């Protein structure tokens, strides 16, 4: 360490400088939550987010959930419960706290170093005291703080997306569960028709009007209907449980009821010619990618700015000796850029920046494509459901009415009438599936405006391939 003399004023100046640069950044996780609330509310329509600060739910949450579960669970009530109660989401929310802490961390000054040395030369005792500070990180502080803030914003966005995904998943699970429950009711009706047929055939065989073969044929309809009924029951249980998981319910809470039927498919589909443009403005992943690129650009700038000075260390020394006057001074250590001119690091940064630019382009292209695909899936699902509603179901109904007339005229028998009833019920059931597919597509279309729709959302329970795969 060199010994240098410096005016004490210098030290003061540096202190003031450091304090100015450091500013006064405080922890503010609540504002992060509010940001997330704000960002996600457009899709969720809810302000139910809260921190689970304790192991147990606060009583106000518990009461609210109990209140919502007391009624047949409405769609938006399910979303509200999921946002309050899904433990996975609660875990995710803590990412906000972590990011906030990191942000604050990044805005703190690097700790200065202090050195003290004692040397003797004969009778001379020399004390060397030095205070040194990495100048590079100090100069870079405003930039690193901006980077950290950017990171914080990114985490907020990701968490917002998680919130919206949960809301979408919950809605889809709700639609599926209601549809499955309705399907189960239809399959009970089919079973009933088949049962009546089997019973009638049995009685006909008993009085000698039917052969064993004819009776067995009618019995086989019943057997098959019973199988479908089992499958429908399984589907009902599975979809109910999926909803339970998303709502984070357990114990007594799982005994909630659902409305009897799905909402009607809207009379007209949503016509959104500018959905791509809208999505470009609202897609969080696009925004994140853009900000990532900006951040890397800043980083690059930072790198250029600190190309030399980040290997620069400033120190002040105060050396005292029992024989000499006190020595004051400063020292600057500079790495000789002999072997490493930071060229590689700069090239790396540049490459990373370019990489991020390409990724951003990719994200934007994928987002546009996903939005188009989701909208197409939504339109198709609407067309299919509307076709069922306007064409197929009325036609089936007409056929059944005409069959009733044929039965009246003794042109067909009771078994044909029952077979027709089974057919009609199955058609209505397929319409129900189409309806459910429509609502799933609608939910995914809502989500795709904010972020990518992954296959996990498209947990299609349906037999009609109308649910959009979304982007993935």
């Amino acid at each position, binding site marked *: 360490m060199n010994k240098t003399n410096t005016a004490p004023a210098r030290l003061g100046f540096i202190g003031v400088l450091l304090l100015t640069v450091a500013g006064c950044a405080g922890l503010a996780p609540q504002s992060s939550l509010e940001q997330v609330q704000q960002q996600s509310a457009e899709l969720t329509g809810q302000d139910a987010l809260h921190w689970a600060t304790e192991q147990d739910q606060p009583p106000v949450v518990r009461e609210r959930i109990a209140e919502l579960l007391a009624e047949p669970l409405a769609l938006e009530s399910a979303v509200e419960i999921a946002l309050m109660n899904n433990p996975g989401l609660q875990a995710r929310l803590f990412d906000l706290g972590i990011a906030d802490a990191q942000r604050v961390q990044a805005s703190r000054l690097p700790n200065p170093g202090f050195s003290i040395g004692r040397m003797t030369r004969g009778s001379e005792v020399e004390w060397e005291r030095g205070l040194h500070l990495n100048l590079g990180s100090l100069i870079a502080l405003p930039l690193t703080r901006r980077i950290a803030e950017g990171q914080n914003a990114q985490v907020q966005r990701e968490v917002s997306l998680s919130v919206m995904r949960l809301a979408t998943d919950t809605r889809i699970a709700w639609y599926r569960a209601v549809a499955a429950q309705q399907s189960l009711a239809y399959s009970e*009706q089919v079973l*009933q*028709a088949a*049962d*009546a047929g089997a*019973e*009638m055939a049995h*009685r*006909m065989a008993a*009085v000698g*009007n*039917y052969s064993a073969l*004819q009776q067995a044929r009618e019995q086989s309809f019943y057997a098959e209907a019973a199988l479908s009924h089992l499958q429908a029951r399984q589907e009902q249980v599975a979809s109910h449980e999926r909803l339970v998981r998303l709502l984070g319910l357990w114990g007594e809470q799982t005994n909630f009821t659902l409305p009897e039927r799905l909402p009607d498919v809207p009379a007209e589909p949503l016509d959104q010619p500018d959905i791509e443009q809208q999505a470009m403005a609202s897609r969080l992943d696009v925004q994140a990618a853009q900000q990532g690129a900006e951040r890397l650009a800043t980083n690059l700038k930072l790198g250029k700015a600190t190309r030399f000075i980040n290997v620069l260390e400033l120190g002040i020394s105060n050396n005292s000796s029992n024989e000499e006057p006190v020595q004051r001074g400063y020292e600057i250590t500079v790495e000789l850029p002999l072997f490493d001119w930071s060229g590689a690091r700069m090239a790396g940064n540049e490459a990373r920046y370019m990489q991020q630019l390409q990724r951003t382009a990719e994200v934007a292209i994928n987002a546009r494509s996903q939005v188009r695909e989701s909208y197409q899936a939504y339109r198709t699902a609407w067309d299919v459901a509307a076709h069922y509603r306007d064409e197929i179901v009325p036609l089936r109904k007409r056929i*059944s009415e*005409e069959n*009733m*007339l*044929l*039965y*009246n*005229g*003794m*042109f*067909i*028998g*009771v*078994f044909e*009438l*029952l077979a027709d*009833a089974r057919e009609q*019920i199955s058609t209505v059931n397929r319409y129900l599936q189409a309806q459910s597919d429509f609502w799933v597509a609608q939910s995914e279309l809502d989500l795709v405006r904010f972020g990518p729709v992954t296959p996990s959302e498209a947990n299609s329970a349906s037999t009609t391939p109308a649910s959009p795969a979304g982007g993935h």
Partner: protein
Amino acid sequence: MVSRRDFFMGAGAITAAVAASSVSRVSLAGLPEPVIQSSPETMAPLEPNTGRPYKPVVTLNGWTLPWRMNNGVKEFHLVAEPVVREMAPGFNAHLWGYNGQSPGPTIEVVEGDRVRIFVTNKLPEHTSIHWHGQRLPNGMDGVAGLNQRAIPAGKTYVYEFEAKRPGTFMYHPHADEMVQMAMGMMGFWVTHPRDAHPNIDEVDRDYCFLLNAYDVEPGSYTPKIMEMLDFNIWTFNSRVFPGIDPLVARKDDKVRIRVGNLTMTNHPIHLHGHEFEVTGTDGGPVPRGARWPEVTTDVAVGQMRQIEFIASDLGDWAFHCHKSHHTMNAMGHDVPTMLGVDHRKVVTQINSLIPDYMVMGERGMADMAEMQMPLPENTIPMMTGDGPFGSVEMGGMFTMLKVRADQPAGDYSDPGWYQQPEGTQAFEWTGPLAEPARFKSESTTGKPAVEVQVRKPTGHSGH
């Protein structure tokens, strides 16, 4: 008789639309004006005012075609065309026929008449006419391809021959006849004897009709022309009961009924309350010594029969085909037999799915006639038609012979229901039923003393 020259203008959209092959007025110049019939009612006999005199027939729910005399030749004009036939009120069939009706008009001539028949084809395809049973030059027999070229759509052909022998005949196409007969193209032909004939009696009433069958899907209008045997509409002159007029007679009238069969199965035609003799076949009058009494005569496919009897007994007498399904209207042929099947509980179950469901057939099919339930459009119930004592429970080839003491000669109108004299009708027995004498060994419970046991052969029965 309705004869409307402008019938084509108002014959309904179907007729107009299908008769695509228009016939120019010029080509029809000089031909007898075609006479068109639109009413399905039985028309009064057409008394001859030109040509040789004869005693005309009455065509059940039909009519006789007027003619014009041209230098001693009787000229008729038949127009083959699509028509709408009312098979019964509320049930219309889209058929092909002649001069506005199916079957076409009856042609009546006298033995020895020279006959010239113009046949105009207004069908969408070619046709021809075969004069079933007539003796005529080979080139007039009407088998398309064999005896003549088929009459193309839109063209008029002329048939000319002498009506050589008296008797009952038919006419029908012999070109694409499978389709054209399934569509109702057919008509009656009667050749009256010129002079008193030893085997042909004068009669007071002379009725004629054709037997025909169609397969009209309930709710539709056009017969299914590919059907071979499983018809569902069995008709007298393309009418089904209760759409068929009764045959009426004054007590002790001598009545002749001529029946021709152009269906694909035979029909045992049965008359109640009287015996008749078959006095004529396709081949001509039956010699008196060869006749025998009958109450049913089987009219085989492609045959004609003349039956004659004295309407000696007052009343409303059933007259029908004795194939019981032929006295039904359209019905399902694969409907399961529900007789004796207990429907309890199952009905409730079915009703929860199909609210309009009603049990039928559990006690028999008469339910069908009792319950008036909505049917497909253009369909009449399979058994219908009421008599004075309730439902007659029949349709199809069923009508009545109505014999009345005061029915004026030449009056063919329906005299209404017969008033049965006091004490001449079956009645309910309300007195005790005497126990029949039984063997001592006979069980009084009605069960046989020894149950009949069916023994199935086994390998060890030692026989």
